[in-house]
């Protein structure tokens, strides 16, 4: 860039969109602005040359001229990266670059994050740094926005801090990024993050933001992103109390894996025992034996509740999953007078969220919790529809319990969440036993 580069011709550039084909032989992208980082992905403004003119494109404020010396300063001081990218004759403005850093791509692969929204084969490579392509801000932003939303869901569903941090390398200031970081962080991280975000909001001159307001915004973000079909609030009318007990048993069964102390040996497991008792009562259409229920209840307290207390996971007295199992057990004993179905349903709904986010289920994040219960609610609705057709006052056919527990599949990464929860729940017990 020499001194011969002249400041632009306003008449040509006055309107938007700009068509870069006055002389197709020399319309060329000369630089990527905003210092592309190998760890990031995003929308970058660019410098385009048209003959002797230089122009910055991809700014919210519209295109603007830039002097050759000014660009030289940006390049020399590391604010921009020089490239030589001829523009296609049909290219129309405004234009910008989509940036994809090499380290960012590797980090996405390592974290098993959703695929990046740009095809590397359609981009131009800058060795050791990354790839770029030139397109309109609307197109580039739409691709980034779609990826952000998809990746937000992945971070939340899998409770992956690694994925949440990737969002921060794309749009650090977005609500999705903050929400994902908040939900996947430790207690200390959450407290520090809330203070930091409140401060950034204040610094930007926006309203004074409290922790509570930020938490509301976190839930509002979940509400905006998780658009899911939820079954009607009322389940179909069930024929008789034993259909209720059967439905409660299914709730318990869904939540059994994270709290089952002996998943490999049902004969030792109080959880497996409780589920068996509830199932048999529902099939027989007769209450369970009181002594057997009592001994199972004591065993549940000993095998699961004690571990919960030792692990100090949350302020709840019991894990909700244990409540679900106990509710099915008590329904089997006290049916037909009191089937405990409502307690079992409620415990299952809370329990799923608790397995995924055991440390924050006490927080008022209704949209998030609704997201986690949605799949289970649909499974219950599915079961209830079946029971409304096939169950009777006398009991439920055994084949009901052979139906898939999760017709749409379990919650995302359910096995990982179960393993993580079990590890925490039973680690204290394992170490004391050793």
């Amino acid at each position, binding site marked *: 860039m020499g001194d011969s580069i002249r400041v632009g011709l306003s008449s040509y550039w006055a309107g938007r969109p700009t068509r870069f084909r006055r002389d197709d032989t020399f319309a060329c992208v000369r630089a990527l602005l905003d*210092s592309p980082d190998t760890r990031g992905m995003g929308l970058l403004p660019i410098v385009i040359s048209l003959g002797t003119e230089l122009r910055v*494109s991809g700014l919210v404020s519209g295109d603007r001229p830039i002097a050759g010396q000014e660009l030289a*300063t940006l390049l020399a001081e590391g604010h921009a990266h020089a490239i030589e990218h001829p523009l296609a004759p049909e290219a129309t403005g405004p234009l910008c670059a989509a940036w994809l850093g090499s380290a960012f791509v590797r980090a996405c692969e390592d974290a098993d994050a959703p695929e990046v929204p740009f095809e590397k084969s359609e981009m131009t490579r800058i060795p050791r740094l990354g790839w770029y392509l030139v397109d309109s801000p609307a197109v580039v932003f739409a691709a980034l926005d779609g990826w952000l939303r998809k990746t937000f869901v992945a971070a939340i569903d899998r409770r992956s801090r690694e994925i949440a941090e990737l969002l921060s390398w794309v*749009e650090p200031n977005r609500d999705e990024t903050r929400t994902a970081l908040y939900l996947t962080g430790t207690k200390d991280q959450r407290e520090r993050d809330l203070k930091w975000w409140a401060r950034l909001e204040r610094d930007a001159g926006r309203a004074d933001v409290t922790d509570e307001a930020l938490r509301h915004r976190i839930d509002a973000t979940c509400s905006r992103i998780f658009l899911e079909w939820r079954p009607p609030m009322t389940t179909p009318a069930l024929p008789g109390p034993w259909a209720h007990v059967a439905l409660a048993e299914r709730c318990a069964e869904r939540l059994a894996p994270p709290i089952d102390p002996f998943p490999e040996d049902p004969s030792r497991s109080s959880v497996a025992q409780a589920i068996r008792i509830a199932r048999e009562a529902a099939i027989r259409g007769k209450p369970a034996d009181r002594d057997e229920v009592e001994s199972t209840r004591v065993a549940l307290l000993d095998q699961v509740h004690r571990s919960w207390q030792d692990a100090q996971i949350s302020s709840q007295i019991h894990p909700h999953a244990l409540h679900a199992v106990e509710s099915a057990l008590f329904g089997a004993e006290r049916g037909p007078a009191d089937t405990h179905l409502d307690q079992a349903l409620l415990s299952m709904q809370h329990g799923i969220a608790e397995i995924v986010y055991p440390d924050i289920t006490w927080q008022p994040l209704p949209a998030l919790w609704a997201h986690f219960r949605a799949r289970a609610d649909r499974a219950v609705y599915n079961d209830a529809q079946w029971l409304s057709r096939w169950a009777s006052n006398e009991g439920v056919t055994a084949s009901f319990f052979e139906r898939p527990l999760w017709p749409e599949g379990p919650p995302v990464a359910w096995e990982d969440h179960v393993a993580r929860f079990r590890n925490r729940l039973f680690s204290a017990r394992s170490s004391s036993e050793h």
Partner: protein
Amino acid sequence: MDATFAEMPANEVRLGHALRGGSDAVEEAVGIACGTHPLLPRQPADQDAVDAAESALGVAPDARPVYAYLGDLHPALGTVGLVLERSWLRTLNGVTRCDSGGLIGRRGAFAILTNTETTSTLQALTFSGASLHAWEPAFGTELADSYRDGVTGYVNGEEPDVSAWQDARVKCFHQAVSPRDRRLWTWEARLGAGPAPDDVVALAFSRSAAAVLEDLHRRGLDVPDTVRVLYGSSSSEGAQFHDPAVRSLLAGGA
């Protein structure tokens, strides 16, 4: 999109200083705000021109100043910038009505000046030594007389009305075609020392730089509460280098 703010007096316009880009600039900016990293004079990108300008202004080779711009972050499209309080002017050595290096190096619109007139022009446009005290009234007068929106117009990069000007910038201005390079009329300040932490009003980060700061913050880096942190962003309309609050602060706003 230009910032609009209540009319501010020129004697409240703050200073802007852009740090060199890259990841290190983010830590450097925070270090300056914390007082752990001094802002030192640096080798300019256009060294020949800056050396020549300093020589013309009688700046000793071993006393290179720290440069800042009144009401502007320069370069405007840099990734990390500081907004600095006027208290930093306690170390002021000189003020020029335009970019001194660009003028003496005949860069851009200054190219029509001859080599022989650059030095005298630079000296005529500069306040230093005995005339230093006069810069502030002159700055106020120029902003009031040349910009329809006064300080707001100047900070937003509006082109000045040069009809009342009587210096060599006028012919440079008329020779260039609008939109013109704002270094023709952006006032440059040269300071004898870097700012103290109390002088730092805000740190402005582009979107990319903000991502780096967020990463450093997650690893434990703290920014003093007394300093405002402002982020750029992107949308379907493109990139916004700095939050609109940056211009408001440069204009002297709260």
